[in-house]
């Protein structure tokens, strides 16, 4: 049991942080989202997306990288490029967009070079061409796109895709991204209520706010450590717990953060909405928190049916 990153992990995260710091002060465009091709390129050029497969770095470095970069007001496609692409389809270039089951709308679709479609049968990949998707206005703080109807021949099958591993990695990615967004949101709200004075004193000195923010901090830290553990162990059950917990707490935390940012949080000039409106979409991935929790419960307490050699629900369908 050791909760400190290794020297190698620290060095790697230092490199991630240096890139993040370069992009932290990018001027905000006053829109609901801000995709940064420069950030995407910097991460790719630095080779940081390959960390998962490096023995000295592994899942913890990958998850911490997602957490660190999700804290930026600008966004790049990090989770799939870090946790999925390098082992599932290393020959296909990122950024990636992911479509699950019957979905037609996906984040990062207008910017992605590869689309991965996952269902119970397996994974299909599409080398995206201009016009394959249409950017669409959305409340969510990502570049969102809708896929147009494409002939079956356009898709190629990702042979031997390990669906269980894909679910495990994606759950870690979703949980990590939620954690990063809410860590950044919480930090910005703490700063706001520390300096904003009403009734002759800082807003943050009122116990009504303090307790709820303290609860938010506890929830986010809980989710973060569940995520890091899931990233380190690679266990399906740990990943389901982390994703379920992160999705479950995200709505409450996002609500409180907006409450305490007040009208400033309703403006597009403050980046709070960037973080909270990413989590509002992430909270629905893979069916949302109830499905992750149910999956975690089945993984923790499998029901053995006497007429089956395999445990019930051992292998998840893609839409589990």
């Amino acid at each position, binding site marked *: 049991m050791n909760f400190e990153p290794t020297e190698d992990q620290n060095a790697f995260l230092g490199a991630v942080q240096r890139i993040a710091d370069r992009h932290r002060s990018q001027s905000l465009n006053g829109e609901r989202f801000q995709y940064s091709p420069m950030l995407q390129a910097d991460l790719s050029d630095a080779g940081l997306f390959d960390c998962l497969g490096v023995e000295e770095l592994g899942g913890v470095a990958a998850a911490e990288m997602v957490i660190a970069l999700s804290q930026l007001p600008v966004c790049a496609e990090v989770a799939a490029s870090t946790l999925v692409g390098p082992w599932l389809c290393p020959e296909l270039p990122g950024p990636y967009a992911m479509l699950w089951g019957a979905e037609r709308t996906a984040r990062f679709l207008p910017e992605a070079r590869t689309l991965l479609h996952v269902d119970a049968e397996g994974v299909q990949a599409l080398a995206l061409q201009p016009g394959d998707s249409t950017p669409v206005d959305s409340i969510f703080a990502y570049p969102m796109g809708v896929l147009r109807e494409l002939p079956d021949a356009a898709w190629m099958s990702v042979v031997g895709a390990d669906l269980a591993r894909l679910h495990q990695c994606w759950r870690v990615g979703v949980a990590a991204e939620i954690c990063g967004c809410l860590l950044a949101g919480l930090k910005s709200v703490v700063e706001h209520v520390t300096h904003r004075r009403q009734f002759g*004193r800082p807003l943050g000195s009122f116990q009504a706010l*303090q307790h709820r*923010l303290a609860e938010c901090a506890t929830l986010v830290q809980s989710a973060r450590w569940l995520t890091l553990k899931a990233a380190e162990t690679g266990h399906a059950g740990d990943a389901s717990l982390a994703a379920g917990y992160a999705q479950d707490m995200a709505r409450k935390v996002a609500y409180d953060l907006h409450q305490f940012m007040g009208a400033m949080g309703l403006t597009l000039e403050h980046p709070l909405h960037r973080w909270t409106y990413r989590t509002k979409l992430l909270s629905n991935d893979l069916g949302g928190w109830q499905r992750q929790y149910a999956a975690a419960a089945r993984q923790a307490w499998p029901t053995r049916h006497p007429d089956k050699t395999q445990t019930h629900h051992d292998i998840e369908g893609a839409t589990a």
Partner: protein
Amino acid sequence: MEFDWSPEQQTLRERVRALLQRELPPDWEVLSRHGPGSRQQTEFSLTFCPALAAEGLLVPHWPREWGGRDASAWEHFIIGEELWSAGEPRGAQYMNVNFIGQTIMRFGSDAQKMQHLPDMAAGRSIWCQGFSEPSAGSDLASLSTRAQRNGTDYVINGSKVWTSYAAMARHCFLLARTGGPGKGGIAIFLVPMDTPGITVRPIPSLIGTGDIHEVFFDDVVVPEETRMGEEGQAWPIIGYALSHERVGIARYAFSRSVLDRMVSLLQARGQFDDPVVQSQAGKALASCEAARLLVYRVVDQRTNGLPPSADSNVARVAVIAADNAVADFGLNYLADTFSGLDHPLHLSHHERAIAAGIASGAAEIQLNLVAHEYLHLPREARPA
């Protein structure tokens, strides 16, 4: 980072489980249903703890000179997890090994160490904690029990309330006022409970037999040698003690073990295929495992020699949530098991869960500390 146990730690865990298998009586679950403060469990602790001590499993984290073997905080924690999951057969003695012993070791006089530590290390010492008063609960610094100096003695007058384990305790870790108001006027006394003038009255409660009491001090005379630390210097010592107490109890481990039992029962009843039940079980599970990780992080910091921090308050908030998540799950899906005595663990878990956010400093005090010490929010102005 690493979230696995070493082979040695796993062996230790199995050793503790084997000892529990050997030492716990067949009716242990019924016996432990009465709670760690009960006469039954206290008496049992006086045979169980010496057995634990004989195996080197009571105070392994203490220095060798006081009966330990300088083991890491992790060893002590693994033992604590296993024992608390089993319903805490150490009874009230868990307090000695979690924080009272360490506090005496660090702040006590040589004579106090000689007087108290060997008995604790041998497993034959029951303590109570004289903190809360009728007018000083969460606002502990306003306590009014007074210790008046009289030559080389002190005369103590006042009362304590909701005092766990007092009826069976041999000593009290007592806070009393020797000076003016506030934190700076408090001192700590290690008081034998058989000192004339001390009266203990049990308070019937929701949390087990003999768990909480009123303790009255009427002209209780104690020598100055019972004072630990200097007059007015108690507050940092209390902070040290509480930082160990906050995460010392592996409540999440007991909650997890009770949750496992609840799910087994639901499976046996054919009620666990319902996705709603599964989802709620997963939610309670996530709560337990989140609390476990936050507590482990504090233990890891302690192992690395870092000073106590607000991370222990964050952990405590999560631990309280975990206890309540499991208690709620039980009440939602197994309400029938909370009547009668067929499921004693459900009952004792429920009782511990309702106390989790109140004992050792209320949940709201923890939230205050998280707000101030962890988030560094500005403090609320206090009335002059």
